[in-house]
């Protein structure tokens, strides 16, 4: 527990919030010390984000209190929270594509840049201020936007000067004039952080900030956040990734089912302890696949595959040859963007010239290069796609119909062109139970499930086809530890039942734990092959970097 008497930057007391029938926060208590990095960890839907949105003023709590530097606060909108120095980087960035980085940053704090001349001072005790709350030095104007402010001038020149000073102080420069949509995701996130600094935040909340970043960008982010902490900022870091919490937080709070279930100094806990707390039972963090027992004939053979780049760029996949036998898991490792996605597209759409320029692909001994995706799937191919919301599910449709996707022509569900709904209902209900998709409500839209449960639904559907070849792309991306363990076990089970498995993942740990063989992709080529027993993280990492 946190020692009493220490100064507290942010405190939540008994925060409760109900959405319809779901109790998202059930009496959340949280204390964050200034100048520290506090990790909030928990599975999807554990209530971390809800608590943070309450702290940022986006949601109003049903009951409970927010205290900032010991002073009780009542927020009516994020403006009040911003005025007290709270800032939040949302999981989905709050940036408008056509506007410049500068405009995105100054939104809501227009006129802030005007040459160090603080507009507050005498007018400080504004309307709507909770009694007893001291105005912070240099905090933004807490009053609602006035007509005078709205019709004033944006003052981009002054804003830019102040931003450049901030950027120099924290070494976070960006191209201020570039439209946001032209900046890479990592830089967009930097813009979000600069926005908080520009708004004079001293408590920075980051909600799942690494979900969209490459490993390199993630490292940059961590370095920047540590720098900010050392400058005295307080950072609240929301994630479901144990590795990240262990790597760079000072303290960690564990959420489960809408409540705080544990709190510790990061240095005094372990990933295993946190994972067990998150899930509420013993979890096996890295399901290690035992070596394969029996391998059979080739399930997939790829020979000299070439995928051309767009507009004359170099080949996305050049001259790739490999095979996957039934009963083995072949892992494709590599930093994202080295041709893995293009390889997968070629396997599913070999007829399309933009997906496959040259090379032969056969599945279970059949040449598939002239087959349609449906014909290929009918050979016994199952797919866990990279992007589940766009390629794996219809988010607006109910679970039942999502379970049917790709099976609509199968004899089990299709009677002379009509869907046999009683069969579908029964099969979907059985699968949803067996694969532990929660909530097990077939009428619910798939988009309402958490990421982990969406993925379990896809796994249920794809594994029910009894695949001869399973293609699993980033199968546990954005999936919590409990579901990850489950999906890993299912992949191993599919292998043991005789499927050939092609596993594409940018998580090295996942690849090393599951694969019987590992191929490393670098710039569209196979840059290395490793057999089980010879996996070494450093050597794999070297190959992934082109070494």
């Amino acid at each position: 527990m946190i020692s009493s008497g220490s100064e507290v930057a942010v405190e939540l007391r008994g925060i409760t919030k109900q959405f319809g029938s779901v109790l998202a926060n059930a009496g959340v208590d949280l204390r964050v010390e200034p100048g520290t990095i506090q990790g909030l960890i928990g599975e999807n839907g554990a209530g971390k984000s809800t608590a943070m949105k309450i702290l940022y003023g986006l949601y109003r709590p049903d009951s409970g209190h927010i205290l900032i530097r010991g002073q009780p606060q009542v927020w009516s909108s994020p403006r009040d929270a911003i005025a007290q120095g709270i800032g939040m980087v949302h999981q989905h960035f709050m940036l408008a594509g056509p506007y410049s980085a500068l405009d995105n940053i100054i939104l809501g704090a227009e006129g802030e840049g005007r040459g160090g001349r603080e507009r507050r001072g005498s007018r400080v005790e504004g309307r709507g201020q909770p009694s007893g709350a001291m105005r912070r030095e240099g905090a933004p104007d807490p009053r609602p936007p006035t007509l005078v402010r709205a019709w004033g001038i944006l003052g981009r020149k002054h804003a830019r000067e102040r931003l450049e000073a901030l950027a120099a102080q924290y070494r976070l420069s960006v191209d201020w004039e570039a439209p946001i949509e032209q900046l890479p995701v990592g830089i967009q996130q930097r813009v979000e952080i600069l926005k908080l600094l520009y708004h004079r935040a001293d408590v920075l909340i980051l909600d799942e900030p690494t979900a969209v970043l490459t490993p390199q960008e993630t490292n940059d982010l961590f370095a920047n956040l540590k720098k900010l902490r050392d400058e005295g900022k307080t950072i609240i870091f929301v994630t479901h990734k144990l590795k990240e919490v262990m790597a760079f937080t000072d303290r960690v709070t564990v959420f489960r089912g809408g409540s705080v279930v544990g709190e510790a100094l990061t240095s005094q806990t372990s990933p295993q302890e946190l994972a067990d707390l998150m899930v509420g039972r013993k979890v096996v963090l890295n399901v290690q696949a035992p070596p394969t027992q029996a391998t059979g004939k080739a399930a997939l053979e790829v020979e000299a595959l070439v995928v051309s780049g767009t507009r004359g760029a170099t080949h996305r996949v050049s001259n790739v040859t490999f095979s996957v036998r039934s009963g083995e898991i072949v892992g494709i490792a590599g930093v994202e963007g080295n041709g893995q996605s293009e390889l997968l597209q070629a396997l599913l759409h070999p007829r399309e010239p933009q997906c496959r320029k040259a090379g032969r692909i056969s599945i279970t001994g059949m040449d598939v290069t002239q087959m349609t995706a449906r014909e290929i799937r009918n050979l016994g191919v199952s797919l866990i796609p990279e992007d589940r919301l766009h390629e794996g599910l219809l988010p607006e449709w109910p679970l039942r119909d999502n379970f049917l996707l790709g099976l609509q022509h199968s004899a089990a569900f299709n009677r002379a062109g009509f869907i046999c709904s009683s069969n579908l209902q029964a099969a979907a209900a059985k699968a949803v139970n067996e694969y532990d998709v929660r909530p097990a409500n077939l009428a619910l839209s798939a988009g309402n499930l958490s990421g982990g449960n969406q993925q379990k639904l896809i796994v249920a559907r794809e594994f029910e086809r009894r695949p001869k070849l399973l293609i699993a792309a980033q199968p546990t991306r954005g999936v919590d530890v409990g579901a990850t363990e489950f999906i890993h076990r299912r992949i191993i089970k599919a292998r043991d039942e005789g499927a050939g498995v092609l596993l594409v993942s940018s998580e090295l740990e996942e690849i090393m734990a599951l694969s019987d063989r590992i191929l490393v992709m670098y710039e569209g080529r196979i840059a290395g092959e490793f057999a089980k027993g010879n996996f070494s993280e450093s050597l794999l990492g070297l190959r992934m970097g082109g070494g």
Partner: protein
Amino acid sequence: MAMISQLLASTLRLSTPLIFAAMGGMLSERSGVINIALEGLMLMGALGAAVGTVATHSPWLGLLIGMGAGLAMAFIYALLVIPFRANQIVAGMAINMLALGLTPFLCKMLYGVTGSTPQISYPEQFHSAPLYLAWIVVGLCWYLMKFTPAGLWLGFAGEHPEALEAAGIPANRIRWLAVLASGVLAGAGGATLSTFLSSSFARNMAAGRGFMALAALIFGKWRPIPAALACVLFGFADAAQIQLQGVKFRGAEVPVQFIQILPYLVTILVLAGFVGRARAPKALGKHFSTANERE
């Protein structure tokens, strides 16, 4: 030569109502609210200005009353589409039909004749002021969108209202103001129809100009100055149409109905030919709920 200068003068005069309406549409659509109700708002403005001028003998007071009539109609529209979350196309169409029926009805109530108001005498009409006013409005809109916080908020309300909310500014309040302002401007556009381009209100006198203004807005990629220039193009088509009436082709007079097609034909060609490349505000037509309302 005289014909050309007459054509140009006519072009500028005829583009005036379009410019007012297009700027109104720009404010509404950049804030994320589709505004096909411009046509109906213009009709209300046209009637309001005619009635006001007849009553007060001042086109300026008439203009104010026309703007008020547009504002009142826009209030109904905003009420339907913002708090009540009606489909913006359907509600916009409803406003247009309401205006189409309401305006002759009000004429009958006030003057005992359906379809038109009494003539406004020449000295009480506008002669050139609205033409200049329209371009001043274009300049103000350009300045608003480019240099003021209000313009930035407006743009974010239409592009990413959640971001606006996260910055502490209520997106729906901005949308309300934008739709009301579009009513005022479209009302002003309508007022120029009855007190500047003619001397009374006539039934359905907007004759699709609200939709043309919308087309100009899209053609101008939702930006004030290009949209105003597109209005001038449509104004030119209208002016040319008037000049061409009575033209003979191989000895026979071309039926006037064919010539009157011209502005609409230009509208269709422009929309079919160029709009593919325009990018609408991302949240255009999408209702916004605050985080609290969403769950």
